[in-house]
Every structure is written in structure tokens, then in C-alpha cells.
């Protein structure tokens, strides 16, 4: 069982510096792909290094199954963790051929020579690199090096595969293709994976669940759909997909007063009235209407009048930037057939079922 349990994990690098990892609690189920998603400096790579055993935590524990791997008292060294890792730079050894790179972990495990050959060939075949087995890394493209790194990591049949921004050095097309390949690889092997990335699309394609990290903390853990549809914090809301974040003050359990208009949401929050809160609504959920000819063009609950400040035609959609009373800018996207001129006034309907109130 490769179930990972991380509890109250803390790590700081300089004695007086900030916490790189701040009380992280996380459970990864056996066979699950968990993405650690966040901006650079959020602590996701440090968490991964702690998981791999390259770092010793200041507080907290890491367990896999029944085995305690890391605690402030000591760490099981990386070489005894039955894990594999794919590094951001791939870390393919330039003095070994593709074959030798992939065979390394099997030699370390004292696998019989004949079995090594067959297993390496099998895995190279799976990543479509068999014909390049005798090449040196300097003679490979970035994408091919990536495949070697993948093959080297999985050939040893690890309990857990750690991936540190594995696709960030590839160009956009290849990156998209490799996302699906990594997911396919997981579905074929069932290895538990922890996948560090700053790219939300990458996380959504590859992961079963995503942990949103910010400032060393985990802000929310959930399936891609949960996080997209029910973000729990303003940060989680804005980090996955595009989101309008309207700051205001809570005036009722489900109502926020922004400067100049009031928004009600479908669900309330357990905050005191008068507390600062934000309302989140995605651009595609805002309904734009013309002011001309509509007599009820006044602001009401979940309705506000604004002025178009920018309009971009993107073929499949139109993307508007609208200034509302109080100076906030909202984004809305509409079907391309609906056209409003820059400078014209429009009404914005914020449907109650798409508005979410979260803590600031």
C-alpha cells in the first residue's frame, strides 16, 4: 500500500526566514495522482523534496503505509524509499547512453543481467525510445530526454513516482502531448504519483485531485471539478480558470455589499456580518444586456450597470472588460454575435447560482 500521509509538515531554510512549507496536511490515496499546484515559491517543490527525503522536516511527519519516512528526528534516505522521481532538468546522466541511464536503477537493485535487458527494452518500447537506446543524451531532443527520464523512473517499478515540473522545459505542443502520455502511463501502471506543477491545465489533465498551494500552505484539496466549481478561497478561485473577484463587506449571511451594488450568492458562509469577503463569478456566467430600451436599467441586487472599456473579438467568443460603479473592472465573455461598442453602457446580470462568497 503506497498511501502517503503528510501531517503538520513544516520546513524553513534560514533560521529566521519564512516558512517554505507551513503546516501542510495532505493524504494521497494508493494509486492516486495528486497534483501540487501553485505559483513559484509556494512551497510545492520543497514539499516534494521532503517527500523524496532530500530534506529533513522541522516539524511534522511523512508516512507511507505504516512506515514513518520523515520526522524531525530523522529521515529514511532517498535510496531506501522505493520511490522514483522525474526532475525538472530531467537529470539524464550525460556520460551514460539511454540504455545505461534506464538500466541504472535495476543494476542498483541487483536484478539479473538478462532480466535487465528485457525490462529496459520493454520500457523503452513503451516510451517509443527503443531505436535510440545506444545514443548519448547530448544527441537527444528535449522531448526524447523527457521520455528517457520517464523510462528510468518507472522501470524500477516504484511504489511512488514524484514528478517535479516534468514538462516545464518542453515546447507547448509537446507539453500538451506529454500530459496525456503521463496520464496514460498512470492508468496502465497504477503507480501513486505526486505531480508538482504551476500549470493549471497540466494539473487538470493529469491529476485525480489537486492541492492548491500558496505561501507554504495548502489552500484547498479537491478534484479539478470541485476546485473549479467550488473554490474555497479567493486564491484558489483565481488560480484555476479566469475569475472575477469582487471585494466587499458581508451584510447578510449570503449577501455582500460591494461599492455601489449588492450581490447575493446561492450559498452563505459562516462569517460574521461586517467581515470582509469576496464574491467570485466566472466571466462566462455574467449576462450582458443593453441599457437602451430597458426601462429597469437601474442597479438592483445582482444587477449592475457598467461601461465597456475594452472589447476583444476572439473568434469563438467576445471578451469584454467593463467598469462598474466603484471603479472595479469585470470581465465578461459572450457569444461573438452579441456586440457592444466601447464606451456604451450595459447591464450585468450576476446569476445568483453562479456567485460564490469566499473569505478574503
Amino acid at each position, binding site marked *: 500500500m503506497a498511501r502517503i500521509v503528510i501531517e503538520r509538515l513544516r520546513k524553513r531554510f534560514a533560521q529566521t526566514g519564512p516558512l517554505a512549507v507551513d503546516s501542510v496536511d495532505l493524504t494521497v490515496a494508493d494509486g492516486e495522482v495528486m497534483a501540487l499546484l501553485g505559483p513559484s515559491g509556494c512551497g510545492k517543490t520543497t514539499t516534494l523534496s521532503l517527500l523524496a527525503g532530500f530534506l529533513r522536516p522541522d516539524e511534522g511527519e511523512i508516512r507511507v503505509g505504516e512506515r514513518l519516512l520523515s520526522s524531525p528526528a530523522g529521515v529514511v534516505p532517498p535510496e531506501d524509499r522505493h520511490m522514483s522521481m522525474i526532475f525538472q532538468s530531467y537529470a539524464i546522466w550525460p556520460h551514460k547512453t539511454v540504455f545505461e541511464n534506464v538500466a541504472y*536503477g535495476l543494476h542498483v537493485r541487483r536484478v539479473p543481467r538478462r532480466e535487465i535487458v528485457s525490462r529496459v527494452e520493454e520500457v523503452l518500447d513503451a516510451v517509443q525510445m527503443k531505436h535510440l537506446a545506444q545514443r548519448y543524451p547530448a544527441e537527444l531532443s528535449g522531448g526524447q530526454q523527457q521520455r528517457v527520464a520517464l523510462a528510468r523512473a518507472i522501470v*524500477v517499478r516504484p511504489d511512488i513516482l514524484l514528478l517535479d515540473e516534468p514538462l516545464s522545459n518542453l515546447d507547448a505542443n509537446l507539453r500538451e502531448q506529454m500530459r496525456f502520455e503521463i496520464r496514460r502511463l498512470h492508468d496502465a501502471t497504477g503507480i501513486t504519483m505526486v505531480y508538482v506543477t504551476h500549470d493549471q491545465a497540466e494539473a487538470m489533465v493529469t491529476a485525480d485531485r489537486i492541492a492548491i498551494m500558496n505561501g507554504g500552505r495548502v489552500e484547498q484539496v479537491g478534484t479539478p471539478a470541485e476546485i473549479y466549481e467550488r473554490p474555497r478561497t479567493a486564491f484558489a478561485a483565481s488560480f484555476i480558470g479566469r475569475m472575477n473577484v469582487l471585494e466587499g463587506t458581508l451584510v447578510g449571511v449570503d449577501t455582500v455589499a460591494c461599492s455601489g451594488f449588492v450581490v447575493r450568492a446561492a450559498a452563505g458562509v459562516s462569517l460574521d456580518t461586517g467581515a470582509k469577503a469576496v464574491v467570485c463569478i466566472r466571466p462566462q456566467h455574467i449576462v450582458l444586456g443593453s441599457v437602451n430600451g430597458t426601462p429597469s436599467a437601474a442597479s438592483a441586487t445582482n444587477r449592475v450597470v457598467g461601461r465597456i472599456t475594452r472589447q476583444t473579438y476572439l473568434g469563438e467568443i467576445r471578451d469584454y472588460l467593463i467598469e462598474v460603479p466603484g471603479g472595479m473592472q469585470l470581465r465578461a465573455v459572450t457569444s461573438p454575435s452579441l456586440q457592444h461598442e466601447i464606451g456604451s453602457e450595459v447591464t450585468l446580470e450576476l446569476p445568483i447560482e453562479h456567485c460564490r462568497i469566499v473569505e478574503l
Partner: protein
Amino acid sequence: MASKLIFVLALAALAIMVVLPLGWLFYTSLQIPDAAQLSFANYVEAFTKSIYLGPIGNSLIVATCVATIAVAVGTPLAWLLARTDVPGRGALRALIVAAFVTPSFLGAQAWMLLAAPNSGWLNKIWVALTHAEHGPLNIYSLAGAIFVMALYNIPYTFTFVYGALELMPAEMENAASILGARSLRRTLSITLPLALPAIIAGFIMSFLEALAEFGTPAFLLIPARQQVVTTQLYLFFQFPQRIELAAAYAMPLILVTALLLFLQRRLIGRRRFTMIGTKGERRRLTPLGRWRWAALGAALIPSLVAVFLPYTALLLTSLSRAWGLGPVPGNLTFYWYRWALVDNATTQSAIVHSFTYGFAAATIALAIAVTIAFAVTRKLVPAGELLTFICMAPFVVPGIILAIGFYSAYSHKPLLLYGTAWILIIAFATRFLPIAYSNMTSALQTLSVDLENAARTLGAGRVRSLFTVTVPLLRSAMLSGWLLVFIPALRELSCAIFLFTPRTAVMTTVIFDFSDAGNFEAVATMGILIMAITLAIVGVSYRLLGRSLVEAQPA
């Protein structure tokens, strides 16, 4: 047109410094005294007579042993300091730098004081302790010369390997760890193979240094009547002079040097060792546990024999009335310092000469390096590769052979420089031109052409934009390039010994003469003075440059 003039002057200087001496060297090797036609007779004589073949064998033995020992000690030392938690890493590095800046002929002189067969202090201590008939050490032997040269070559391998280990991305080793490789296996299968280019570079560097070294064999092997190539070349210059034979005898040394440097480039081959790494990664040091202090002890040994013992011996000797009496009260005195700095005209003028010649040589080398490097990196002239080749050519020519080239080119009309200060100045400038040139080239390459072009679009001419934009930005690189010529020029022996005359003696040639005459107190005093001056210059320039060096780092 000012730019053209400067460039033509630099070209003329290059011809005088590199092309003519090397051309004359080759021409001389084909000359027969008192005969008109050229022939290969000198080569036949040099490479068939057994008395001349012996030194070649000795040179190869010495160079191989020196390089092997230097690599065998320098590599583990670099690993200890870069990859383990051995205590005192900073101090250990400082000691290795101290060995690096010590000229090996000075180390040889110090070891003569320590391990001469009967009079050496270590032998005397041994005799006193064991009541043996005589001590076990004899520095006047091939083994002694190998020992001393190896000591001062360890820093090359150390520096190369240490640098390679520092630059190696931590992920390379982490990847092996996570696949289950323990410390020893990881070190042997990943770390050391990745550092192999640096290890090979260290071996080749030490091999070539040992092959070209003159001072140490002259001190230790001439008394032992065991010649190597460089001391044999020196003997060709003694009466009766055989300059033509010397020129022929020197040729293979150039070829071997060029060949090895070429080989080094080729060796890496398909396994190009370009490694990408990510920034800010933290490296795990291998904990040595209870071996920490044992490792510190082992790491201290090279410094002990290369720095502690020699400098103690030199310092005490320079403070002794007569070194044979040992450092006892009543024998201690400042007499020799007073003698060297105030009373003795020879040492005084030698100190002045060393400074002025070094100053002039550094200035000339830097001026040429800046001009040519600028023209080549900015592609202002055709045949840039040829110019680079000419500037770098002295790198493959051992100092002693460069001296023979200078002697054969400028000891007669039309350019009679032998006997003047100029031949020493130009020889120093030529010898260290490659350092200045590569320094300036790399500095210029990091400097965007756009900075200059911006000035030119605003109406400044090429020379004006060079002096108002590029030169100020290069100031610290130029100062460090200047120092990289000046400091080795101060301690240059193998060129100077062939080109000086009594009126143009420098500190190193004076040391050589005193040592020849057995005046070891004077040698020690001058040696300590050279080192003190070098340290003072390095210290002051570090103070001056330190800040601007950091600021001048291109992003």
C-alpha cells in the same frame, strides 16, 4: 582612422612577440654552424645520441609520475571539500590556494633545506631521534623532483575538479539516490564520471607543467647529474653553446603540448557534458560520521608538506645568520633582509627590475589583448580565428622554448634586443599574453554589442564609443587581466634565465644564482620577499577590485 592605426600597431607587436620568435626557432633548428645550407642534421643528432635521449625518458617519467600523483591526491581532496562535511573546509581551501601561488622552484629550494641528504633539517631530526648514520631523505633525485613538483601541481586538479563538482547540478546525484544508489556507488558511478573531463584536464595540465618546468629540476636534478629535457636545454646554452641543437631538441616539446591539448578537447567526444540545472537547489553533503576528523587530518597532509614545512624552513633560514646551525637563539637575525633591501646593489636593482619589467609586460600584453580581442569578438577584421590562434599560441610553448626562440630571433641584427630590458619585457608579455587574451575575450563576449551601437547611433565614432562605453564597463576585467600577467611575470624564471644579463637580472634569476652558489639564506630572503610582495599586491587589488568586480558581473 585612429582605429586602423591602433590595430596595425597591435598586429606588428604580435609579429614581434609570437610569429618571429617561433619562426626563428624553427629556422635555427635547421641551421648548421658555419654552413650555408639548411638541414635536419640537428634533429638527427638530438634524437639519436643516447646522452640526449636519456633526458627525454627522464622527462616523460617525471611528468607521468607528477600528473598521476597530482590527480590521485587532488581528486579526493576536491571531493572531500565539495561533497562532505569535513570540518574546516574554508581554511583547507585557503591552504590549497597558498600552495597554488607558491612558485615550485621556491618549494624546491625550501625542500633542499628540509631534505638535503646530510644537512637537511628533517634528516638531522631523524638522525637525532634514531641515532642512525644518515637520514632517509634525498631531495636531489628524480623521486625528490617528482615529489616537489607533484606538491605544487595538486592545486590544478583540485581547482578543476572542485569547480566541476560545484557546477554539477544536484539533480544529477539526487536522481541516482532516489533510484537506490548509496553514497559510495553514487560517487563512483555518477559524480566522478561526470567530473572526468576536469580530472583529465588536471592530469594534462600537470603533465605539461612538469614537462616544461625548469626551476625545480635545475635545483634538484642538476646536482644529481640526472638531466631532463629542460635542464638539457639549459646545458646547451652553457659553454660551448649549441643553440641550433637546442632549437631542434625543443621541437617535440611543443608538439607534445599541442597534441595533448588537442586530445583533451577530443576526448569528451559524444558525451558532451553540457548539463542543465535548476537554480536554488540544495545539495546534500555526505556525512562522514566518525571519519570526519580522520578526513581532516588526511586533507591537511598536502598543505603541511607544500605550505607549512617549506615556509617555516624559508622563514627561519632567512632569519638565520647561517642556516646550517639551525634556528637557535643567537643565530637569529634580520641581517639578510637589511642586506637584500639596503646593502646589496644586485638584489636592489633586481627588485626594481622585476617590478618595472612586470609592469611594462602586463601593460603591453593587456593593450594587445584588448585590441585584438575587441576586433575579433566584434568581427571587425577578417581572419579572426587566425588572430586568436596567434594570441593563444604561446600557451602551447613552454617558457624555456619561448626563450630559445627569442634568443635566436633577437640576439642579432636587425632587431638586437638581447642584453636590453626589452627582450625580458617582451618575453614576459608574450608568455602570458594567452591569459590576458582569453580573459578579455570572455569579458567582451558577455558585453552586448548593443551598448556600443547605442553610442554610435548617437554619433560617437568607433574609437570614441570604445573608450566611453566599452572600456569603462571592462575596467575591472582589464585590471584583473593586467594582474594575471603582472603576478606571474614577477615570478617568471624559465624564460628569464636564458635572456637576462648581469645588467638586467630580476629577482628570480638572482635567486637562481644564489642557490647555485649555495647562499641559501639569501635565496630564502628573496623568496620570502617575492611572496610578500605578491600577497600584498593580491590583497590590495582584491580590496580595490572586490566591490567593482561584484558590480561588474553581467546579469
